């Protein structure tokens, strides 16, 4: 009677022995977790068996990560019980979870970058001695990595490794600590298609050995490719738990979103006009002062979407910032509508019709404490009717804001509401409304649907296509390969500051794009189509 609230938890002692295949190793019953204003998990039941890859599917904000953070001891549930191998447990911290044989690979890695792989893995081991017998650790790491195909040099330092390799270190870390239950939070978002394949093979091998794998994702293809069972979460609730072999993408999408989703956007053939943007042999430094953009050339035409695919951090950000005037080019040229605009200020470019949907929409695209109306005039406040001379005209500003809010369907209590109170999707609509409300000549869109739910994503993609058909030139940079493929008319793949190749969207080979994303150069670069026009 109520004693549970203050009572001590049963000892979190490791249950010995590898679980049998099919044994229920984790059972979560009625888990409820509240955050201020949000019910992140609403009486969630979830179970994982030894020997399976269990996909946890849901949109952003569906509560997948929260649920797993509860299992890993990062959050305490407000209600509900957790059983590990049949025994009721209270997991108060990741330390408890590790003792119970639970390991988690987070979306953001938790590694110490100046240290070696072996040092990172040994860090925090309960068996670690004051003087670490590193050679012993290294030997064991090599053993594990050979067994599971997790290639990585134990002596390498973390900063020398690619993101894919760092992820392998995180997995090894969990295995080294004896994890029989391994949670991976959106592990593919940082990987190339080739690396994803390797990861899936590793996961299968671990499952066959009798480990239980929980795989958090919002990508349907991945669920179909790797999982045995799938649990779908929507708005904090479990919608269904299904065997993967007995379902399909369409059903899963419907469960995830709560309605039918169109997979194919209707796209009319491009009516390509003159050149709007031409980039010639452009080079730029990154924030660390290293050459991150190493000579890129391309053209974007009216009525065309030029997509740039590639894993983030390969110079895309620098490219966009140079084109929008936020970063200086050290070499090369940016030509806009026949005028050399290299290293012009952002204002000069805005005045020439360059719209920018920024990568980090809240960090750069928004003044969170200012109202929706004030955010909507961020780039036009100097023009009539919003201002005359030095004076702002607030009644005009509010009228304009009200018009845009209804036109772009921004859900907000009023135009005077602080912008920070809007949801992610509505913030993106606000930014789109501001950027595209004039007559955009060039739209530079960076990861425009990143982190948005399916509904908002669909809306934004349609809008981009609408502007393309209206004759705007669009430069689309996205990590989401599906997005680039479904929207673009031509696709360039970027790797380490260079284009590996440019292909027509009509004859795309996904395999080939995957190779280019991993740094293989396309032998014959397709010439710009638009030169004909």
């Amino acid at each position: 009677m109520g004693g549970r609230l203050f009572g001590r938890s049963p000892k979190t002692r490791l249950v010995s022995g590898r679980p049998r295949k099919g044994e229920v190793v984790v059972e979560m019953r009625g888990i409820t977790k509240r955050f201020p204003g949000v019910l992140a998990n609403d009486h969630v039941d979830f179970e994982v068996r030894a020997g399976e890859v269990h996909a946890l599917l849901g949109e952003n904000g569906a509560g997948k990560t929260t649920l797993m953070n509860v299992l890993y001891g990062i959050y305490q549930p407000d209600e509900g019980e957790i059983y590990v191998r049949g025994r009721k447990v209270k997991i108060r911290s990741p330390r408890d979870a590790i003792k119970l044989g639970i390991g988690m690979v987070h979306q953001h890695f938790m590694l110490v970058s100046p240290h070696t792989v072996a040092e990172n893995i040994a860090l925090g081991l309960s068996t670690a001695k004051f003087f670490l017998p590193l050679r012993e650790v290294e030997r064991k790491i090599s053993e594990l990595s050979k067994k599971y195909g997790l290639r990585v040099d134990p002596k390498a330092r973390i900063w020398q490794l690619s993101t894919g390799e760092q992820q392998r270190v995180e997995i090894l870390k969990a295995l080294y600590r004896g994890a029989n239950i391994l949670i991976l939070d959106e592990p593919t978002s940082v990987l190339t298609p080739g690396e994803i394949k390797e990861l899936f093979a590793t996961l299968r091998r671990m499952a066959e050995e009798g480990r239980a794998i929980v795989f958090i994702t919002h990508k349907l293809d991945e669920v179909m490719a790797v999982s045995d069972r799938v649990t779908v979460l929507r708005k904090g609730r479990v919608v269904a738990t299904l065997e993967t072999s007995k379902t399909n993408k369409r059903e899963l999408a419907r469960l995830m979103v709560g309605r039918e989703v169109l997979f194919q956007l209707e796209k009319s053939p491009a009516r390509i006009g003159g050149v709007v943007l031409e980039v010639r042999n452009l080079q730029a430094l990154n924030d660390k002062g290293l050459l991150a953009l190493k000579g890129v050339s391309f053209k974007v035409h009216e009525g065309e979407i030029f997509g740039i695919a590639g894993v983030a951090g390969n110079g895309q950000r620098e490219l966009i910032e140079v084109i929008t005037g936020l970063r200086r080019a050290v070499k090369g040229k940016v030509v806009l509508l026949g005028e050399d605009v290299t290293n012009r200020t952002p204002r000069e470019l805005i005045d020439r019709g360059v719209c920018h949907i920024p990568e980090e929409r809240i960090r750069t695209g928004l003044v969170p404490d200012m109202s929706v109306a004030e955010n909507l005039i961020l780039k036009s406040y100097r023009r009539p009717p919003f201002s005359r001379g030095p004076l702002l005209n607030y009644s005009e500003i509010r009228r304009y804001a009200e018009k845009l809010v209804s036109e772009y369907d921004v859900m907000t209590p009023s135009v005077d509401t602080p912008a920070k109170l809007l949801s992610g999707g509505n913030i993106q609509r606000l930014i789109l409304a501001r950027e595209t409300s004039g007559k955009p000549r060039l739209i530079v869109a960076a990861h425009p649907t990143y982190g948005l739910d399916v509904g908002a994503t669909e809306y934004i993609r349609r809008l981009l296509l609408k502007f393309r058909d209206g004759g705007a030139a669009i430069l689309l940079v996205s990590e989401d390969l599906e997005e680039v493929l479904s929207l673009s008319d031509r696709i360039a793949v970027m790797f380490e500051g260079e284009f590996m190749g440019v292909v027509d969207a009509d004859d795309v080979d996904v395999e080939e794009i995957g190779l280019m994303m991993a740094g293989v150069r396309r032998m014959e670069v397709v010439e710009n189509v638009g030169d004909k026009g």
Partner: protein
Amino acid sequence: MLGIRVRVERRAVTPTWLLAAASALSVASALLAISALFWWYGVDPLLAYRRIFAGAFGSTYGLLETLVKSIPLMLCGVGLTIAFRALVWNIGAEGQLLMGAVAATAIALFVPGIPKPLVLPLMFLSGFLAGAAWGVIPGVLKAKFRADEVVTTLMMNYIASELVNYLVYGPWKGPEEWGFPYSSKFPKYAWIPTIPGTRIHYVTLALAVASAAAAYLLLMRTTIGYEIRVTGGNPDAARYAGMNYFRTVVLVMLLSGGLAGLAGVGEVAGIHHRLRYPSGISPGYGYTAIIVAWLGRLNPLAVILTSILFGGLLVGGDAIQVALGLPIAVVNVFNGAILLFVMGGDILTRYRIRVEWRRGR
């Protein structure tokens, strides 16, 4: 069985009434905390507060003196709201004030041949420009070289202070001042007129109130003010929107420093009628103005009220010094405590406490 659950959570929006209540409560808490100090000096805190209040607001003389002291606080405080709104932490109002005083003295005593009616306007103008220049230097250093303005403006205060010392002990020392570190007295036409029978130099007071209204309009109703607020709200967004960061930072430091410079003119031409050693001109108005601006929640109109409140605190502080034999440092501790409590209170307003009664199982 019932369980009580007390949780602290972040608020999405802080209502205005709460901000006002938090300000009042912060001041009250600071008073309470300072009571301990009075105890330690063997003074009954209630008596001390009564004396402070009576000294500042309880008599005509006290009230008038409170207004006198609120003039420099208002000018500096309004200037600081402009800078702080752009996230530029100008700690240098003190030095900017002193430079205004120096420039006014130069015009009054050392520039011959100015027609008499023009002397005062020129003193105000030169004081504004000198204060502005003192502000623009750290502004440029910040915008161009990312030099931390908290450090540079603070250092500029020392330079200004030593410059005043040098002048009043050296070249500008008045020959008829019996060796005191004073300049000569200004000629009468270089005095700011006062309301008869008081020390209120009303021209400066009018300037201060007008500057508060102007700053409010500037911030809330003009494109420049919009740029200042965007820059303060999110500097990255300001750059992305094509705003000129350099221009904004330099402009707010110019206005901020200029207004502090006017305060310096008011002190030397309205009260002392000569240049004196630095602490003789300002007992730290430039620093107290930081609290004035903050307590006014960076709203220039609210600064009118908070500057009068702090003017009263200075007068009341003088009163307890005399009446109860407490050191001046007590007043400084007082000011510091209020700033600390106001800033702490600010953080607390962003959260709410929620108590839940729930049925246990």
